[in-house]
Each structure stands twice: as C-alpha cells, then as structure tokens.
C-alpha cells in the first residue's frame, strides 16, 4: 500500500440523473468498504441521501453536502485526508477531482489523487489529448476535430462529409450530443453542445454509425499488470448510446482473432494512459472487415463496469479501490472463489443480456428516438445458458407491461407499417424486429435497416419460429422443452397453445421440466465458488444449496425508473442486512445490475431473475423460505404479494388484505369512513356526460385521471368546466371499462409521514412537509424535516390519523401516508402499505433504522421489544431538505412543468442547523444553477399572477432584472410594478425565444396554462430553456423558497458549514 496513506476522501456521484445512476452507489459502497478493509479511515462526500454509501457505517465520516468546489474544499480542510479517490463517483467525481486539482486545493492540503493520475483523466477526456495519445500507440480514432464555435464545425463537416457525430466535452451520458445528417441538424446540435459543455467545447467527428459497438472492461495496477474483466457487444450498432443499447456479454459474433485484436488494443490503451484501476474502452468494429476505431475511453468505473461486475461476478469497483491504494491485482483475493486472486480474466459459461429501461411512459410527448444522448433511467440484466432465454428474461424484467417479445399495438400492423417502423431507432425497435420476422420480412432487409447482426436476428427468429411451432403442434415434449429452454413464460406458452397457464405448468411438470439454477462464479466452474449467486436455466444439474428453514426472500425493485428509484434498493439492502442480524438467512431476487442489492455479498443468496410470479415461485420452490418480504421493493414487489399469497406463499409483514384495503379505492373509502377521516371529495365517472355531471357536485379545481393507469399518468388538474371538457376531449375517454376518477384538488400544503407499526403500536420517526403545494407529485417536491409550518394541534392530528389508519390496516412493518392541509383542515391523499421513497432520507436524518425495524416486525418482533414506543419521535435539532433532481435535458420534447406525474430522476439532501441552510444546500446540491444576478423572465397563468408579483418584487430587491410576457407584464404594470414586456414566441419578431437564444435571460419562472391557444408556447419556452441549460422554475413555491435562500444569504447568514452525519448524531 502507498506509504503514509491513512485517511481517504471518496467523492460520490451525487443525485441520480440519466447517465449516472445507481451503479455509482454500488461502486462507491464497494469502494468505501474495500478501503476500510485495508484499514483506512474513509471520508465520504455525496449529496444523495437515497444511497447505501451515505449510510453511517459505510464510511467513517459521511458528508451529505453538495458536490461542488467550495463544499468539497471545506471537507478537505476539515478532515485533512491523505488521499482522494475520485474514479468511483462517475463523471461528477472525476470532474470534481479535476476542479480541485486545478484550484490548487489538492496541493495546498497535500492530498494525493489515488488511482488514475490527473493527466490520464485529462488525456481520456480532452479530445485533442486523447487523439494524440491514441496516435502515439497507433490506435485508430475516427477523423475528428474540436471546435468552440459553430461555423468552424460546419466548415469541418463540409470537408469530411456527413453523417457527423457531435459530442460535447465533459458531459454525462453524451448530454447534448447527436448525429447530424445535414447542415441544419449540425447547426442545432453544435449550438446546444457548445452551450452544455462546461468548457464550451465540442468534438465533431466522422460517424461510424452502423458498425459493431464493442466494449472492453480493463483493469490495471501500478505494476503494469493488466486484465480484461469482460467484453460486451451491443446489439444496437454504433449510433445509439451504449446506455440505450441492448447489450450482450460476452461478445457473440467476434472470432478469437477479432476478440484478441481489441483485447490487445485495450491493454495498450490502459497502459498508455497509465490508469491504476478500472477503465472502459469502446470500439467501433467494421462488420465487413477487421478495421476498427477507438470511440471512447472512460478512465473510471462506469455503468458498463457495474454491468460487467454483475455479468461476471468480478467486483471491479472493489478491486479498483484496492488498486488505487497501491495494491497489485495479484495481492487481492478473488472473493468469489476465496482461493484465487483478482489477477485473472473471468470466463463466462452463460450469456448475459442487458436491456435499458426508458422513462417514456412518463413523458407522453417525448421524443423516443435513440441516439448518442442516453435516455434510459435504468436497466435490467438477465443471464441464461442461451441468448434466447437471456433476452426473454430481460424483456419481462423491464416491467413495461409485457411479459414477452411482443407488443400488442404492433400485432395489428401491416407488413408495410412494420417495414416502415423498422426505420425508427427507438425504444421499441427490438419488438418491431420480432414482429417483422413474424411477418416474414427477410433477414437481409432487417439487417440492412437496423444494423442488427445476423446472429441476433437469427436468434430472434428462433423465438418467433417456436411460437409458430407451439401454435401449430400444440404442446409436445419437444416444443415445451425448447420453449422453457428459451425461458418462455408458461403464460405465453398457454396463450399460444390455447391452454391455461396451470395446464401448461402441469404438462411440463409431468415431464419433469423444471428450472435449474446455476452459479455465477467468474471461472466457468473451473474452481469451486464460495458465493451463492444464481441464475435459472432449463438444464439438468441444479447447484443450489438451499439455505434451510431460517431463510427469507426479499423481493427487489427491478430497474430504476422515474417513480421507483434507488430508494427502494436501499430498502431491500437494509432488509437483507436486518434479516442477517436477526439470525435469518437472506435471499434477494432482483434483476438490476446497477445496484447494491445485487452485489453477491449483500445477501446470503442472490438470484438474478425477473420479478414475475413464475420466476419468483421457482426460487420459492427451490429455497422453501419461511416467507417473502414484499414491502421494500416498491410497487414491483407489492404487486407480487397477492399472487404469491394465492399460491400459498407466506407474505411476511402487512397482510395482503391490509394492502388491498389501502390500494383499492372503494375499500379505502370505506376504511376512511369507518375511521371518520376526511379525504378530498371525489367521484368515479364512466362517461363524459357523467363526468361533467359529477363535476358540478364538486368544487373546482379538480384532479382528474384514468382509473386504470398507475403512477400519476395522464393525471391533470383542471380549474374550470372548460378545462375539464378539453381533458375529456383530448386526453382521456371515459367509459364503463375505463372510468375516470375525479377528485377535488385541495390547494394546500402536502405532508408526508413514514411510520413503522407492529399492529399494536405505531412509531413515527418523523413528519416531512413539502414546499410545493399539493398537485405537484410528492417525488418532485422539496421535502423538509421537521415541518416548519405546522402547529402542534395539526401535528397531533397527523399523528392521530396515522396511528388509527395504520392500526386499522394492521400494518406490520412500514407504511407511508400522504396528507394535504387545506384551509386549516387535514385530509388524507393516499396510504402506501410499504416502504416509501422517503425512507432513506428520513432514516438518515432521524437516525432511526426504519427498514431494520420493519423487517424485524415482519419476522414477529414488536416495537416494544426493540425499544421503541408508539407515537411521534421528538424532532431532531437540525433541519434537512430533500430536493428533486431532473434529467430533462436528456429527453427531447419532454414536458418539464411539474404536476401530478412524477418527473424527477433523483434527489439530494441538504442538512444544516436552520431551515434556510438546509434549503440552500439542497438547492445547491441539486445544481439548480440559480444565477446570482441577471434577468428573470416571468410568464405565468392568470391564477398565479398575484403571487408571481410578490416574487418578482422580491427578486428585484435582490438586484435581478425582471421581464415579463404581455399578460403577466400588463398585470405587473397595473399593480405598480413596472417591467419590460417581451413578446411570446408565437407573436413573432424579437421574442422570448430570441432573447433566450442570445443568452439574455438567466432564469425563467413559468407556470402552466390550460385550454388556451398559446399552450404550446409555454411548452416551447420551457423546452428551449432546458435545451439551452437555463434554469426554469415551474412552481411558484420553488421560486419563493429559492428567493428566500438567496435573500437570507445576501443578509450574510452563514450557510456554509459542512458537518458529517456522525456529527449530527452527537446532538
């Protein structure tokens, strides 16, 4: 180990955004533990509270503070670490390290950058230096040049010809990049790219779109030992970001010459860059020759390395952290075998498929086209002994409403339609390919259009042919064997053979066709593995050693998506740990390769499987656990509770009936009536006429949504009958099969409670109050603990309602309740009989191990036995704020205005002595980029004008210049607040669009208007702000709080004190 190294600062990756997700919690957690294993003191900074890595026992000192130069510097000043590990915190960590070095902070405090040297980071990240480095070692890169202005980029394109790829320097997940096929497109993309790059630099290069995209994960230590952990082949050829590509590991269509050619190149590259740790190299390989180009090198642990770790069992982040401390690969033990070392190359005896999870269901109008800018929020991974099986498992792990490689909406399409659809490079392409094969479109044509390698097309054809076989021949021993080998669900086989699922199951069980489980062991069974990490397949030998009668299964939460993020993985992990602590054996089933829950040492057994009833039942039958815990894996796990219970599985914790009473609207209404607890008045309408009718019985504004869509989709707030009419006309058609729900929208303050109950007592660790008024999804609101605006009587009432509802539902474990306080009265909005998004946040700020308590209750312990009383725990003396973080710039055409539908991808926490300090840190940590001065454009709906005026005055007092559009400006002027009025986009001439484009506006405050002509105007304005990276606030509440933060800061209130979570606990 490096001499004198005692204390190491680790920089996390901050909030989850598209392109930087849970994989860095996995990497960071592994890194912190690896460093501790080596006897080092670990200091961590990460603004994201929903992570395992920010748990107090992962690092010795945990700073949940903004990851920015000033805060990190302060932490360094306070902690005086000897070393800095920045290569495990994604691009954020890497950029921070560069900033710290450039600012002289590392030098000043004698902090050594561990692992990869600064020059290596620069060489990998700076395009010009990278090109030169590659030239030095004769590694080909596509012709390219760097530009800082648009005209030069266009001139270069003229020279080398289209298509051209634009990549902004130093951005995540290719933000702001794209492929241009002509001058116009290049102008747009180049303009945006220069703006989004922190150094205003773009790379313009020859496009190798259509070539095979191959990745290698490489490790190197200080002794120059180099190994390849894994190589991967993207099914989607070059042109689609690897994060948005369906990826298979290992490569399938490369022969050994090609495999070794790129392997050798990878070693040459990592040696040239002198990286000490892990790195990822991406290649474009000509499908028609052995010519290749190096596309990209990530000199750090990445999403791909998390995938490679899970795909092989080789813990890249852990090894990278140890290498960074000066150990060599052969000094590090291979944890999977316990005997061999980390200095070898894993070999697989199965096939891995990674499938991205996109958030388009949240953004109805968003551009679904995939390109160089990543759009997926998460991913799933599946393993099987054949490609077909891995692919089908991956598809049903996605939870996109399909359990198979088939989309309902494509079934009725004609051959011509499908042939056309093939051209769309979007999230549904593989489904379209399957449909094209069903319709008999030839391999050559599909290959020509999609660039999918023939090998993959032929494998998909195998699946399609099997459908035909099943349809024509009914069930035979041969075809059901094949179907199960391809991991086709019983339900799908049943559908194809016109049987019931039970009949199919009975048929195959009679033939003794049952799943077997194999181990992931890094070595294709060459050595005995010590880690029970399993996947299912239909082979002959089963390797599971069941954990016995003291085992419990924890269902995970599947892929990260908007609305179900890393918070639920945090809960699953803690549940597994709690089980272990309680003397039980924990078993996790999950399919998300990015997470801590799928690290093989989190649980006693890990099953990497889809979360469907059939897949989970296979594990249950194998392990015969005491029961299954469903309350920590979000809606994914909750949805499995009832069907599992129906099959005789013991669901630990809250009963299935209790869950149903909370989730079924009618039963929930009965429950509230019984308890005499009010909820906003509401009705169900089965026709448009009925909807208009019932609206008269209610008070506007109303919140309307279809009853059959989950998660706030197509939910809107309507303020007038006219708006309701428009909603019924344009958005949703009410019918007896698809009724719509109409509820009164209570304008007021939203309050959220997470509680733990054993059925006798209800313990409430804390109450959170939301900054944004009801109507903004709680996941998109800034939440504050403890509440700042509730009096004791109200708090007592919240505690009373929470207690009574929880006891009535006989909750055994965690429950989450959302309230609204409107005109002084408390209403219930919803009850979630499970662990919620806010559990990690609340656990961290209250220091209550909520998941552990809930898990132990599920096992039969009581709160009293664990030393807890019923009621609300006294509030801590500190204040914490949780702020949402969005990824709007990644998804073209996505509506950014906040509403009832959740849109944020991540969150940050600010914690401090005062409300203002906590909020300031949260706003900073969320990188809202509120300018310290400049011009603010205010353009708001009529109902918001009075409130906006107050805000505008406040901002002006702080020295901002206010401009407004006609309506808003007129109102302001009338009210004696003179502002400049600018034209809206549709009014033409010099308008807000031109001002924004010319950089004349620094902040936009805009609220939604409905049912008026210029509706799209607001949308365009908001999109433009996003595209050009100008902050845009769509809630006046957020704007008000931002104003307050800045005003207080102006008054000289010192917000700037970093403290570790461990310090707050001393209070």
């Amino acid at each position, binding site marked *: 180990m490096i001499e004198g190294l005692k204390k190491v600062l680790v920089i996390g990756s901050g909030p989850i955004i598209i392109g930087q997700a849970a994989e860095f919690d996995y990497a960071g957690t592994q890194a912190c533990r690896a460093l501790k294993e080596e006897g080092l003191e670990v200091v961590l900074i990460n603004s994201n509270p929903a992570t395992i890595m920010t748990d107090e026992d992962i690092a010795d000192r945990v700073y949940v503070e903004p990851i920015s130069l000033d805060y990190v510097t302060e932490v360094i000043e306070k902690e005086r670490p000897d070393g800095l590990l920045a290569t495990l915190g994604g691009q954020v960590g890497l950029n921070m390290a560069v900033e710290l070095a450039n600012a002289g902070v590392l030098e000043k405090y004698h902090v050594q950058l561990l692992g990869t040297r600064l020059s290596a980071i620069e060489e990998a990240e700076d395009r010009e230096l990278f090109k030169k480095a590659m030239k030095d070692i004769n590694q080909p890169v596509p012709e390219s040049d760097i530009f800082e202005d648009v005209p030069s980029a266009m001139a270069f394109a003229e020279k080398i010809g289209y298509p051209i790829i634009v990549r902004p320097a130093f951005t995540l997940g290719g933000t702001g990049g794209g492929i241009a096929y002509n001058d116009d497109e290049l102008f747009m993309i180049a303009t945006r790219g220069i703006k989004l790059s922190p150094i205003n630099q773009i790379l313009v290069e020859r496009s190798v779109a259509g070539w095979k995209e191959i990745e290698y994960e490489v490790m190197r230590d200080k*002794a*120059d*030992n180099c*190994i*390849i952990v894994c190589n991967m082949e993207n099914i989607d050829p070059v042109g689609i970001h690897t994060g948005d590509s369906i990826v298979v590991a*290992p*490569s*399938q*269509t*490369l*022969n*050994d*010459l*090609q*495999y*070794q050619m790129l*392997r*050798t190149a990878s*070693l040459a590259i990592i040696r040239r860059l002198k990286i000490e740790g892990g790195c990822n190299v991406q290649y474009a390989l000509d*499908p*028609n*020759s*052995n010519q290749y180009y190096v596309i990209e090198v990530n000199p750090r642990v990445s999403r791909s390395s998390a995938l490679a770790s899970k795909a092989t069992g080789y813990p890249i982040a852990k090894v990278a952290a140890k290498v960074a401390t000066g150990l*060599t*690969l*052969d000094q590090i033990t291979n944890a999977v075998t316990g*005997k*061999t*070392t980390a*200095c*070898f*190359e*894993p*070999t*697989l*005896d*199965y*096939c891995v498929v990674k499938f991205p999870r996109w958030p388009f269901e949240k953004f109805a109008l968003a551009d679904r086209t995939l390109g160089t800018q990543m759009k997926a929020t998460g991913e799933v991974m599946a393993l099987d*002994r*054949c*490609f077909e099986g891995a692919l089908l498992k991956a598809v049903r792990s996605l939870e996109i409403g399909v359990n198979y490689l088939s989309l309902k909406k494509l079934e009725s399409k004609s051959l011509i339609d499908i042939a056309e659809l093939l051209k769309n490079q979007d999230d549904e392409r593989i489904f379209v390919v399957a449909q094209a094969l069903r319709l008999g479109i030839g391999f050559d044509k599909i290959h020509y259009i999609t660039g999918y*390698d*023939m*090998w993959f097309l*032929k494998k998909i054809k195998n699946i399609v042919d099997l459908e035909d076989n099943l349809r024509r021949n009914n069930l035979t021993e041969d075809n059901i064997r094949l179907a199960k080998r391809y991991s086709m669900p019983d339900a799908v086989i049943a559908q194809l053979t016109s049987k019931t699922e039970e009949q199919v199951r009975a048929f195959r069980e009679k033939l003794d066709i049952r799943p077997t489980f*194999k181990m992931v062991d890094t*070595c*294709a*069974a*060459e*050595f*005995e593995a010590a880690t029970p990490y399993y996947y299912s397949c239909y*082979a*002959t*030998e089963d*390797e599971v050693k069941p954990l016995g009668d003291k085992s419990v299964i924890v269902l995970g939460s599947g892929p990260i998506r908007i609305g179900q993020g890393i918070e639920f993985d945090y809960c699953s992990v803690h549940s597994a740990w709690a089980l272990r602590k309680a003397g039980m054996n924990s078993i996790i089933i999950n399919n998300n390769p990015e997470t801590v829950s799928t690290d093989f040492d989190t649980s006693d057994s890990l099953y990497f499987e889809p979360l469907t009833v059939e897949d989970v039942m296979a594990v249950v039958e194998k392990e015969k656990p005491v029961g299954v815990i469903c309350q920590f894996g979000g809606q994914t796990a909750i949805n499995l509770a009832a069907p599992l219970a129906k099959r005789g599985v013991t669901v630990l914790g809250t009963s299935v009936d209790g869950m149903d009473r909370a989730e079924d609207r009618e039963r929930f209404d009965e429950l509230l009536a019984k308890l005499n607890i009010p909820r906003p008045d509401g009705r169900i309408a089965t026709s448009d006429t009925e909807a208009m009718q019932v609206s008269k019985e209610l008070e506007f504004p109303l919140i309307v949504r279809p009853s059959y869509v989950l998660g706030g989709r197509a939910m809107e707030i309507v303020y007038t009958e006219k708006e309701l009419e428009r909603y019924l006309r344009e958005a949703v058609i009410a019918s007896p099969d698809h009724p719509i729900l109409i509820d009164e929208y209570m304008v007021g303050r939203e309050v959220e409670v997470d509680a733990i109950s054993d059925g006798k007592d209800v313990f409430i660790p804390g109450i959170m109050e939301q900054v944004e008024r009801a109507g903004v999804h709680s996941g998109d609101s800034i939440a504050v603990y403890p509440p700042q605006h509730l009096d004791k009587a109200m708090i007592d009432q919240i505690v009373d309602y929470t207690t009574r509802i929880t006891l009535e539902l006989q909750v055994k474990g965690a429950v989450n309740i959302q309230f609204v306080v409107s005109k002084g009265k408390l209403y219930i909005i919803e009850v979630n009989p499970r662990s919620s998004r806010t559990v990690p946040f609340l656990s961290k700020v209250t220091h209550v191990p909520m998941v552990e308590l809930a898990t132990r209750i599920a096992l039969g312990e009581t709160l009293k036995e664990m030393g807890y009383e019923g009621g609300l725990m006294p509030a801590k003396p500190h204040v914490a704020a949780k702020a949402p973080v969005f990824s709007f710039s990644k998804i073209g055409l996505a509506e950014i205005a906040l509403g009832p539908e959740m849109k944020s991808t991540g969150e940050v926490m600010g914690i401090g002595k005062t409300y203002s300090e906590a909020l300031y840190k949260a706003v900073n940590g969320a990188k809202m980029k509120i300018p310290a001065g400049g011009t603010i454009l205010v353009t708001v709906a009529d109902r918001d004008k009075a409130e906006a005026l107050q805000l505008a005055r406040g901002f002006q007092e702080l020295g901002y210049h206010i401009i407004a559009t006609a309506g808003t400006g007129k109102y302001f002027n009338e009210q004696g607040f003179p502002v400049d009025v600018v034209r809206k986009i549709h009014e033409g001439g010099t308008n807000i669009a031109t001002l924004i484009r010319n950089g004349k506006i620094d902040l936009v405050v805009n609220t939604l208007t409905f049912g008026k002509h210029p509706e799209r105007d607001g949308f365009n304005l908001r999109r433009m702000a996003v595209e050009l990276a100008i902050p845009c606030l769509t809630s006046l509440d957020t704007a008000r709080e931002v104003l307050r933060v800045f005003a207080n800061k102006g008054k000289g209130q010192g917000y700037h004190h970093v403290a570790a979570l461990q310090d707050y606990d001393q209070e």
Partner: protein
Amino acid sequence: MKGCLILANGQKFYGQMLMDTPAVGEVVFNTGMTGYQETFTDPSYAGQIITMTYPLIGNYGLFHEIEQADRPYAAGFIVSELCDMPSNWQNEGNLSTFIMTHHIPCLYGVDTRAITRAIRSQGVMKGVIVPETMAEEDIKDLMAQPLEKMLVRKVTPGSVRQVGQGRYHVAVMDFGAKANILKDLIRNDCRLTVFPAYTKAEDVLAVQPDGIFLSNGPGDPQDLPEIIEEVKKLIGKKPMFGICLGHQLLGLSVGAKSRKLTFGHRGANHPVKDVRTGRVYITSQNHGYVIDENTLPDDAIVTHINLHDKTLEGFAYPKYNFFCVQYHPEASPGPTDNLYLFEQFVKLMEGK
C-alpha cells in the same frame, strides 16, 4: 439422434449426437469463450474428448486460416449449443459441417457445466460418447478400451520439411506443433527445419541450427522415454526454447519429475507470474501434466508460476542456454500478451 456421455465413474450426461459414431477418450474441459476452431485443431488434444464450457459454440462459423493443424486429432467434442447459423465476415461455413467432415464424434445439447463440475471435483477421467441405442455390452467394451498412449506418433509429421525464410535457422522438434507457433517463429525472422518427433539428436544437430525449438504435443511426457534420451543429447548444444510438452520434456531431460494435474489447465485466462519481475501475464493454456518445481536441479531457475495453483509454468537453465514455458505464448486461441517470449528466444540465439 439422442446420445450420452458416460464417465468412467458411471455418471451420465444426455444430449444429442451429430453422427452415430461413438467415441472413447479422456474427458477434459476448456474454458475459452472464443477460439473453438483453434482448440479443436490443436494436436495436443489428441485422444481427448473436449468439453467447451462456453455454451454457445459455432457462433462465428469457420475460418481456415486459424486452424492449428490440417485436421482435428481430438477423440470427441462436447458442446452445449451448436450454432448452425453463424455470422462473421470471415465465416466460411458451419462448425457442424467441419465436425462431420472430419468425422469427430460430437455430443451437443448437453449440460456442459454439469460435466465440467464432475471433472473439476473428481479429476479428468475416461469417458465414452455413445448413441442412446448402443447396447450395454458394446458400451462396456468401449469403456474397457485402453486410452491411446502413442499420441505423439499420431500427430507428428512423417518427414522433415523446411518452412519460412529468416535470419535464424531454428530446428523445430514437432511433437504436434500448433501452426501459430511456427508462424510466430517465422515472424521473428526465423527459418525453420521441422523434424518429426522421433528424429535422432545427431540428425537435428547436423543441419547446424542456430537454435532448437521443442513444440507442444499431446499426452503424458513420461510416455516418451526415447525422445527424452534425444533431448538430453541436444541440451547445451544450442540455445533452446520449449513450449508445453517441449517444456515438460526439457524438465524430464534435466532430471525433474512430472505429475498429472487433477483436471489440467485448459483455457485462455490463466494468470502466470514471472517470479523474477513480479509481473503477471494472462496466458493461453492446454496441459494436463506439470513439471514438479521441487524436483528441478538447483541450478535451474524457476521463471514462471501459475498464480492459481502455484504450479510451475516456466523455467530457465542458463548453464544449458535454454528456457521453456508450460503455457502457450503463440495464443491461438487466447491472449497475445506473451509473444515477447519468441523475441527472447531470438535474443538467446543472438547470444544476448
């Protein structure tokens, strides 16, 4: 046609057979994920039934340039999924065609991981691949057949030949040399005189080579006493380099002992440490026997050990001006990290 692999211990593994020809041989496993064609044509596998642990075999078809010999010498192949729809621009045909053309018994659609686990835990053993319809008696007879001993005789060429042009004249003792070894020597500016395995030392020395190379080959080195006698006569006369069987023969010739490994090293991912520098190299391996490090003469230098099981992977004998490695620097298949050893041989011949 249905068939199965029966191991000497009685374990059975069911699958499909490509042809109805039965096979008998020593069942081994190879963990490489690519390079099936190179493996199948590696003469060192003579007499063995090769189980590929990677389940999808045949994905990129065939490509004659990567073959290591003119035909496979293995007794049989066992794969999980035999791909009949290969895809690669270099592809020249289906793997199944190749297997059938050479009439090598092949069991596919079988749980290869189960076979691997059986061999890993109990060691390599004799096995037979038989069609389902084969009579018990016939299976018994097949299983009773002794494993072939004279494997080198089977794979070594019948006559002397000259290959390549180059500055250094290397005498190659061909015990079943992989084609790429010869290519790599030639790439390093060598011209080769390739001798059959049982050539007398005087005949080899008569061509006045600058150096002598001892190739890889199949079987137990202790089955080759006549060759060992000749190697003893060559030692010290010229700079020498040995790979795999060549390394073992050099070991036995200087008085060391060899022993059989439980399940051998066969794959492309084995870490080998150069004990002089501490550097670790990833190597391509295919061997069932090793030279016991403790039996080497005191003045021999251990240069390489296997990082997994600490067995000997290479030694040098400065007194006699030779060095040798147990693994395969020529790769094919596998990592090309160790090509520097060929350069080292050239330097040895240069007297550096």
